[in-house]
């Protein structure tokens, strides 16, 4: 190692300062969101949302707790959709990739071409919406939240295929075949376990897509029993009294007593809390997923 020159030291210090500022820039809106949610609502009405509200209150969260059966249900939907969607997405894309990597597979090139062509041209939203809602009837079913996001990026299939090609040892496979193992046993017992790194990376990206999805809900879901957390947030964004209306609690309740300005922020905090807590644990795979998929994604 060489010793740092004065200029190199200067650049290093500047890097720390600028990156600290950038990090603050990234985080500050979340701070405002959280502090507003703990603000006293009459204080917020008089002074606006503040980073350090002078009067705090838990009234917004008390309201959320009182509506927990609806919010909890939305969480249940989000979790079901994320788990099933991510697993299915990984399963069908890796099986497709494993089939494609078979040497000498008749039509392999054609199939790869057809898969990549989907990145080039699409029929657009109107026909897709028509096919899903008119012909396949996925409106107001869980499928409406799962199916459209299963393979959003055709390139990931090629990515997995390339990963298989470089990491699956041919000898091991031959040994298993000699022992009489069929393609499916080899796939589940050897290929998948060996592919944990890429499964983790793609899985995280798929899970985030499902967790954050409100777009498909916008097209396919109107039944409030199928509302996910993101759709609930979207609905409350337009109508803060959505939860109250929906539970039929408004009769006899003075709407003006509800802490609507702080409720708005508290529901968003409740919406992002789980992903914020989990984030440090999957950050590594998240960053990896970006570098792997970005350039062609």
């Amino acid at each position, binding site marked *: 190692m060489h010793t740092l020159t004065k200029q190199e030291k200067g650049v290093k210090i500047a890097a720390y300062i600028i*990156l600290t500022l950038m990090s603050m820039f990234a*985080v500050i809106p979340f701070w405002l969101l959280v502090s507003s949610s703990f603000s006293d609502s009459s204080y917020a009405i008089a002074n606006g949302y503040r980073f350090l509200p002078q009067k705090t209150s838990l009234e917004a969260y008390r309201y959320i707790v009182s509506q927990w059966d609806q919010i909890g249900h939305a969480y249940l939907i989000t979790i079901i959709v994320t788990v099933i969607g991510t697993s299915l997405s990984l399963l069908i*894309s890796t099986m*497709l990739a494993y*089939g494609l990597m078979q040497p000498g597979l008749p039509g392999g090139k054609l199939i790869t071409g057809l898969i990549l062509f989907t990145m080039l041209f699409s029929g*657009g939203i109107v026909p897709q919406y028509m*096919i899903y809602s*008119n012909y396949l009837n996925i409106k107001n079913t869980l499928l409406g939240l799962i199916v459209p996001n299963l393979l959003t990026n*055709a390139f990931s299939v090629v990515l997995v295929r390339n990963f298989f090609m470089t990491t699956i040892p041919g000898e091991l496979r031959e040994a298993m075949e000699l022992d009489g193992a069929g393609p499916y046993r080899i796939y589940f017992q050897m290929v998948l376990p060996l592919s944990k790194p890429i499964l983790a990376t793609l899985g995280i990206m798929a899970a985030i897509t499902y967790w954050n999805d409100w777009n498909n809900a916008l097209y396919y879901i109107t039944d409030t029993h199928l509302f996910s957390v*993101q759709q609930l947030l979207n609905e409350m964004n337009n109508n803060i009294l959505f939860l109250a209306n929906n539970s039929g609690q408004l009769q006899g309740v003075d709407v003006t007593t509800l802490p609507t300005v702080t409720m708005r922020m508290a529901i968003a905090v409740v919406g992002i809390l789980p992903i914020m807590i989990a984030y440090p644990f999957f950050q590594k795979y998240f960053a990896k997923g970006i570098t792997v998929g970005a350039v062609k994604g």
Partner: protein
Amino acid sequence: MQSVTQKKIVRANRFRKYGPYYLMMLPGLLYFLINNYLPMPGIILAFKKVNWRLGIFGSKWNGLKNFTFLLSSGQLATIVRNTVLYNLAFIVIGTVLAIAVAILLNEVRSKAANRIFQTLILLPYLMSMVVVSYLAYAFLSVETGYVNNAILPALGMEPIRFYQEPGYWPFILILINTWKGIGFTSVVYLAAVVGISEDLFEAARVDGASKFQQIFKITLPCLKPTIITMFILSISKIFFSDFGLFYQVPKNSGILYPVTQTIDTYVYNALMNQNNPGMSAAAGLFQSVVGCVLVVLSNALIRKVSREDALF
């Protein structure tokens, strides 16, 4: 005769060998068929008077009416202009900032500090646009927003009704897009910066090159292929916009449409809110076709610059 039976045997063996693999590929292939290929013929809806009951093929032909309406209403010009101009702004600002952040991140050799910076700068990218619109509202709301209650009064300025004044939105949307996307793009560039051989810098130091000379004479030239590839890729998507950004963050406010409506939000609004699927399909077709041409052209360009980054 014998050769025919031999061929049959070969074919049967081949089927026995590859049959299970085709079965394995079936769900994925079916998915692409339903999700991507079935809607493709549906682009003809752009030339039809869309009738939900009659479906894609049953709907009556309508000639170019959908397009002429779209053009004469002036909406096509607005949504194409917005889509393209915002994308250009995003590309230029995003690229410059992301490279700067990537170079700075590379200077932070402490693993822990580096990871903390990356984690925080990437955080906004993790959030859905619905959440982003809540965050924006906390700043921009007329009644309770931070800008209107703390910043503007401190400057002695009147409150601004952001959700009703188009003039501010180009700035707001560019700021929010940069805030959300900067982590993503800088992580991509960081991967390229990290890949530059340390020997180059060592040699430059021996020659007495300053830090800035190293950045401008080594780092940036080494990043050139990545920059060009990313640039061409963004250009290929220049007719596509982030639906969430333009729909959620301005809260789909009609007054703001002249500066917030892009092709994607128009397609959605015409389809779902204005019950105008024909014009929606027409705008969609325009996007698909022009988008496709641009991807093909861009790919040809990328092949020339750096072969392994080409899509096909």
